[in-house]
């Protein structure tokens, strides 16, 4: 494959006036973007700003409702991911897309294996090519090892090797560094720079602003599906970029009230689940919001699940208001006043086809029962009460929750748990994928709960949210609690240093 020279001013891949809607949600509105050979281009924006939709449009997964994808200046019609790949576009998704039962070599070359006579796969060539790619990436992974059980970082390596294997002209990376340690990020950036030297165009997405400034030349910012700016990074500051992403100053986004912390409400001591997390100890007091930061896969969700009793722990103890919880028993955790708002609201927090009323009612099946039968009236008034308090926007309370927007669905999950009157509330990624307005409402709500004396443990990968909301920040790295940082000392640098396992300054 011949590459254009790095000085060539024609964009290799571009979007022109692209719009895309999913039902009533307008994910992209008239967005344009140009990717030049030999340039690393950053795509910035909050969760739900439309970044993923944009990537999937470039990758041939989504077809735009309006506007065009241009390849070498010509309108391109991708009928599927294979078309985009054949055009030299490689995508590394946030969630690795591997085949767990197949070997690493097969994962990399699936659909494009080197062939021998009669179209048979040349297994040896496949293995050798994989070994060469691993060597080029500086990692030791056995090409014959199945992908099942690889760490997230190693899975990411396999994805990158896949992109390298067909000399992509355009490499799109959706938060490739989210799960990587410092040295792994450095190695990845080495590969990205090498690709850039060869004239590839790179589109890079990261929530870590310093990485954007470290490796990118241009940045395109999206907000609520619309293009805000596309400009060179030189001369910009992190504050400029954040303002474009958020559209307002950070302070008003995080309305944390100062509350005097009270008694210890949740106490976790030396909690260990073998191979998942080790020796985790912390306390959350009444009126406190404790943030839990860390990279994806650091074990934060797993700790929350164990505390609530969904998974069993192997060692340690959990107390709520001085009362020890039974290992692996969510019903006793609920009785003790614990509530858990899970990270995946669609799969774990809600029964999508059921009404708002019934969903909120699920946590009250005992409370609203009379003589062993459900009291429908009591269930409805309980649900209505909480739906109104949280300002859930709906047409009728009997509508299925699947008809609500993501933000309103999240409010239903919160309502469901707040209706139990919890003493300790654990929220896992409470604002992931919801719009900025609802996000602020959720933050106000958490803050008000803390002011009322509820102990809140907030797991979040959204660093500004952690820094803005938390009284204290716990940081996990690879299954261990690596730092506990007070509000005044918590900065992006201190938290990220602990989260990536770099020694704190």
């Amino acid at each position, binding site marked *: 494959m011949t590459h254009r020279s790095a000085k060539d001013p024609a964009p290799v891949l571009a979007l022109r006036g692209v719009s895309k809607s999913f039902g009533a949600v307008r994910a992209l509105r008239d967005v344009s973007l140009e990717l030049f050979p030999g340039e690393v281009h950053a795509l910035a924006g909050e969760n739900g700003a439309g970044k993923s939709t944009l990537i999937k449009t470039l*990758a041939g*997964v989504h077809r735009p409702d309006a506007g065009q994808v241009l390849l070498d200046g010509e309108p391109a019609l991708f009928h*599927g*991911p*294979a*078309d985009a*790949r*054949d055009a030299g576009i490689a*995508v590394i*998704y946030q969630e690795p*897309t*591997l*085949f*767990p*039962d*197949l070997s690493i070599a*097969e994962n990399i070359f*699936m*659909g494009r*294996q080197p*062939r021998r006579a009669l*179209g*048979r*796969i040349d*297994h040896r060539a496949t293995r050798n090519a994989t070994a060469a790619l691993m060597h080029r990436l500086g990692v*030791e*992974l*056995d090409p*014959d*090892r*199945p992908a*099942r*059980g*690889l*760490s997230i970082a*190693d899975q990411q390596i396999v994805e990158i090797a896949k992109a390298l294997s067909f000399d992509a002209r355009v490499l799109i990376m959706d938060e490739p560094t989210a799960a990587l*340690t410092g*040295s792994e990020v450095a190695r990845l950036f080495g590969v990205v720079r090498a690709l850039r030297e060869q004239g590839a165009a790179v589109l890079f997405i990261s929530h870590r602003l310093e990485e954007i400034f470290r490796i990118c030349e241009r940045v395109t910012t999206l907000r609520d599906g619309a293009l805000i700016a596309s400009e060179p990074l030189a001369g910009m500051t992190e504050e400029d970029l954040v303002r474009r992403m958020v559209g307002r100053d950070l302070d008003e986004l995080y309305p944390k009230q100062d509350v005097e912390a009270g008694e210890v409400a949740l106490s976790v001591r030396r909690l260990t689940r*073998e*191979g*998942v997390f080790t020796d985790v100890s912390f306390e959350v007091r009444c009126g406190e919001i404790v943030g839990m930061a860390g990279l994806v896969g650091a074990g934060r969700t797993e700790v929350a699940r164990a505390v609530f009793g969904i998974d069993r722990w192997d060692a340690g103890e959990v107390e709520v208001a001085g009362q020890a919880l039974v290992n692996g028993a969510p019903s006793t955790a609920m009785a003790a006043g614990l509530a858990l708002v899970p990270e995946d609201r669609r799969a774990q927090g809600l029964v999508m086809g059921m009404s708002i009323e019934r969903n909120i009612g699920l946590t009250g099946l005992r409370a609203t029962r009379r003589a062993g039968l459900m009291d429908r009236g009591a269930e409805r008034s309980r649900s209505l009460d909480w739906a109104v308090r949280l300002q859930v926007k709906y047409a009728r309370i009997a509508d299925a929750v699947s008809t609500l927007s993501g933000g309103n669905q999240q409010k239903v999950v919160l309502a469901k748990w707040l209706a139990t009157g919890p003493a300790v509330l654990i929220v896992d990624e409470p604002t992931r994928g919801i719009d900025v307005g609802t996000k602020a409402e959720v933050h106000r709500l958490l803050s008000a709960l803390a002011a009322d004396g509820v102990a809140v443990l907030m797991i979040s990968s959204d660093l500004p949210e952690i820094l803005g909301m938390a009284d204290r920040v716990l940081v996990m*790295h*690879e*299954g*261990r*609690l*690596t*730092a*506990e*940082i*007070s509000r005044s*000392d918590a900065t992006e640098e*201190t938290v990220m*240093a*602990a989260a990536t*396992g*770099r*020694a*704190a300054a």
Partner: protein
Amino acid sequence: MTVTTTEPAPVAPIPASSSTRLVDRVFKVRELAILLVLLVMLVLTQLGNSAFLSEQGIKDLLLNATILVLVATGQSLVVITRNVDLSVGSTLGISAFAAGTYLQGGGQPVVAVVLAVLLGVGFGLLNGLLVSLGQVPALVVTLGTLYIIRGIDSIWVGSRQITAADLPDGFVDFGSGGISAVPWLALIALALLVATAYYLKHFGSGRELYALGSNPEAARLAGIPVRRRILLAYTFCGALAGLAGALYLARFGNVDSGTGTGYELTVVSAVVVGGVVFTGGSGTVYGAALGALLLTSVNSVLPALGVSSVWVLAINGFLLILAIAVDRIVALRVASALKKRNARHG
């Protein structure tokens, strides 16, 4: 500021080869284990009844297994894609009767076999289209086609019956003949088994069947033509079920409207006992064939040992649950071993 322990992650080289060997061994052991169980069972039976492994005895063992091996081979392809075909028993029955009717009217044996295969291909295509386009679980779709095909069979056949007397002598002789202890039918099944195994290992579309069973979403993103591959698996499965119908006719010479009823469950058992994982993406046709051989051998072993054949079904069920339990335990062991290794290498 209270920063507790923060150690730099140790970047140690991974002892990759040892864990790969562990995993490798587990997967190979899966087929070896069935072979071992089979051999032990045969040897013990031989010790109890020295007439068991006579030339005729071996021939009977192989003949009994042949048809199940064929259908299980086809079924494996479908199960590898994370689907299932429950209509194979009905397809076998109707193909056998179609081939028989044609031969009864003075037809050519070779054409009869082709006819049965084509009928199977037709039903396979139907299943494949319904599953790949309908986005409906294969279990339900093929349960539907199971009844539809059986219904057509019953209406068409009625109370008629085809017996060996209606068939050309050469065809019936072929069904029971062979080279000493090895029947012709077993050689046909073996050839198809080896070809299928070779195809699955060495051709891109074969590997893609594993890929899409392992992670359908990733397969779509990798540009694998998911629907075409599922269609291929069902068509192949149907073709082998059709062929099995023709061979059934040759072997038993006796077909009516109930032929092959309930056979799909035996086939699925053989495939699962043979280590083809029901959730897709893993297993080999050799394993499925060994599973078929094991299940049919139980049928011969019990009478040889003077045990009533009423035990056969219970023993088959026990083998099935044992196989699944072993798979599950091994999977958990491997998972925890890999996880611990990852935790260490960090």
